[in-house]
C-alpha cells in the first residue's frame, strides 16, 4: 500500500522533472539558434537528412491517402447524388486535418526517431562531452541546427503532402470515376478559404514541427547513454510525438474552426 503510494508520487515527480528539463533544454536550444544562422552549412546538412530524406515517404503516402479519400468519398457521396462535391471533401479533409496530422506522424517516425537515435548515440559514445571538452557548445552545434531544420521542413512537407493528396483525389475522382473536372475544382475553390483553411493548416504544421522536433532532440539529449537507453529514448520519442500531435490537433482545431 505504502509502496504503491510512493510509486505514484515518484512517477509524478519524475514527469514534472522531465517537463522542467525539457523546457530548460528548449530555451537553451532557442538561445543556441544563432549558431546555425551564422553557419548555414550546418543547417543545410540537417535540412537534407531531415527534409529531403522524408520527401519520398511523404510523397507516396500523400498520393495514396488522397486516392483512398477520392475512392471512399465517391462511394459515400454518390449515395446522395453529390459526387460533384468530391473535390471539396478531399481538399478540405487534407488541408485542414489529414495533411498536417499524417505528415507529422510520418515525420515523427521517419525523421524524429532518427534524430533521437543519432543524438542519443552521440551521447553514448561521449561525442557530446568531447565537444564540451573542446569548448564547442553541443547545443548550438548539434541540437540547434537539427531543431531548426525540423521546424522549417514540417510546413514544406505538409504542403507537399496536401498537394499530392489533392492530385491523387483528382486522379481517382476525375480520371477513374469520371466526375466532371470543372465541378471538382470550382466547388473546391468556392468552399475552401485561403486564410481559414490553407493558412490554418500551415500554422498547424508549424506547431507540429516545433513540438515533434523538440521531443525528438530532447529525448536524444536526455537518453541514458547505453544501447538500451538509446533504444528506449527512440521509442519514447515516437510515442510522445504521436500523443502530442493528436492532442494538440484537437486543441488547434477547436481554436481555429470551433466558432465558425
Amino acid at each position, binding site marked *: 500500500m505504502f509502496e504503491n503510494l510512493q510509486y505514484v508520487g515518484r512517477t509524478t515527480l519524475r514527469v514534472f522533472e522531465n517537463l522542467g528539463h525539457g523546457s530548460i533544454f528548449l530555451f537553451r536550444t532557442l538561445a543556441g539558434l544563432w549558431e546555425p544562422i551564422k553557419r548555414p552549412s550546418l543547417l543545410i546538412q540537417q535540412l*537534407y537528412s531531415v527534409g529531403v530524406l522524408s520527401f519520398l515517404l511523404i510523397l507516396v503516402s500523400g498520393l495514396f491517402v488522397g486516392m483512398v479519400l477520392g475512392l471512399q468519398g465517391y462511394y459515400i457521396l454518390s449515395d446522395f447524388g453529390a459526387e460533384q462535391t468530391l473535390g471539396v471533401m478531399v*481538399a478540405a479533409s487534407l488541408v485542414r486535418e489529414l495533411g498536417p496530422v499524417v505528415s507529422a506522424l510520418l515525420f515523427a517516425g521517419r525523421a524524429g526517431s532518427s534524430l533521437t537515435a543519432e543524438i542519443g548515440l552521440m551521447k553514448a559514445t561521449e561525442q557530446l562531452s568531447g565537444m564540451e571538452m573542446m569548448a564547442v557548445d553541443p547545443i548550438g552545434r548539434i541540437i540547434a541546427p537539427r531543431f531548426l531544420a525540423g521546424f522549417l521542413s514540417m510546413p*514544406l512537407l505538409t*504542403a507537399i503532402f496536401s498537394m499530392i493528396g489533392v492530385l491523387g483525389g483528382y486522379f481517382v475522382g476525375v480520371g477513374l470515376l469520371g466526375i466532371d473536372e470543372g465541378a471538382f*475544382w470550382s466547388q473546391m475553390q468556392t468552399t475552401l478559404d485561403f486564410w481559414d483553411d490553407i493558412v490554418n493548416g500551415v500554422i498547424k504544421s508549424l506547431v507540429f514541427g516545433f513540438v515533434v522536433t523538440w521531443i525528438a532532440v530532447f529525448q536524444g539529449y536526455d537518453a541514458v547513454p547505453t544501447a538500451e537507453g538509446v533504444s528506449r529514448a527512440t521509442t519514447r520519442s515516437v510515442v510522445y510525438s504521436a500523443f502530442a500531435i493528436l492532442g494538440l490537433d484537437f486543441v488547434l482545431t477547436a481554436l481555429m474552426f470551433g466558432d465558425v
Partner: protein
Amino acid sequence: MQQSKTIATMVGLFVTAGLIALFFLAMQVSNLSSFQGNESYIIKARFENVGGLKVRSPVSVAGVRIGRVKVITFDKEAYEAIVDMSIESRYDTLPTDTTASIFTSGLLGEQYVGLEPGGDEEFLGEGDFLELTQSALVLEEMIGRFLFKKAEGSGDN
C-alpha cells in the same frame, strides 16, 4: 566538396517543391485567386428573413457572380436583417431600382443573393440601399403553408 554541393542542390529542390506546393494550395485549391486586387463598393439591402445566407455568399446578376456578402447585421428597430454586399467596381451600372432576392442554388445548395436590374437611369453608388427585396424561402414555412392549405381544402369537401 562535391558531396556538400549535391546536398545543397537537393535541399534547394526540396524547398522549391515545398514552396510550389504552398503556391498550388493557395491558388488552385483555395479561393485566393478570385480575390486578387479587386476594387469594390458596398451596397446594402434590408431583408425580412435571410434564411441560410452567410458572410461571403455570392452575389450574382444573371447567374454571374459580381460580388460577395460582406456583413449581415440585425436592425433592432425594424426587426429586419441588413445585408452589406461588396460589388466589384467594374460592375458600377446597377440601376437604383434593382431588386435583390435570396435564392438557393439547387435543391440543397448554398444560398446566394440574386440581383435583378430595373430600368432606372441612375446607378447605385457606395452605401446605397436597395429598396426592393425578396426574402429567402424557408423550406419549413413553405411545407407548413402547403399542408395548411391542403387541410383547409379537404375540410371543404
